[in-house]
C-alpha cells in the first residue's frame, strides 16, 4: 500500500472523490453534500487578527470586520 498526500481545493477534492481518483480528503465540511460522502469533523477553524503590540486594536478581546484596518499589502 502506498500513500500520496496531495494539495487540492475543496472543489477538486469532491470531484476527485466522485471520480474515485481520491480515497479521502480533509476539507471544509460546511458546503459538502452529506448524501454522497461520509464526513468526520476534525476541528473548527477560528480566525485571528495579528497586529503590532501597542497598536490601536491590540488591546481588544475581539475584532470584527468593520473595525479592521484596510490591508496595505500589494495583492
Amino acid at each position, binding site marked *: *500500500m502506498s500513500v500520496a498526500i496531495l494539495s487540492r481545493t475543496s472543489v477538486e477534492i469532491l470531484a476527485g472523490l466522485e471520480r474515485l481518483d481520491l*480515497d*479521502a480528503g*480533509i476539507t471544509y465540511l460546511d458546503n459538502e453534500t452529506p*448524501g454522497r460522502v*461520509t*464526513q*468526520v469533523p*476534525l476541528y473548527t477553524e477560528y480566525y*485571528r487578527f495579528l497586529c503590532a503590540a501597542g497598536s490601536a486594536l491590540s488591546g481588544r478581546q475581539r475584532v470584527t470586520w468593520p473595525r479592521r484596518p484596510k490591508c496595505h499589502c500589494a495583492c
Partner: protein
Amino acid sequence: MFAGGLVSVSAGRARGEHVVGLITPRRDPQTPVLAALLDAAERLGRGAD
C-alpha cells in the same frame, strides 16, 4: 518591522468560521484502510474543540 512584538486577537465569529474534517466516499462496506482512517479521525475529532 514589529520590534515590539505581535499580538493575536480573536476575530470573526465566536463559534468559529469553518468546520474542517475528513471526507470519504460513502460506501458499504467501507474498505479496511478507509475504515481505519475514519476510526482514527473520529477519535481525533472527539478530542478537539
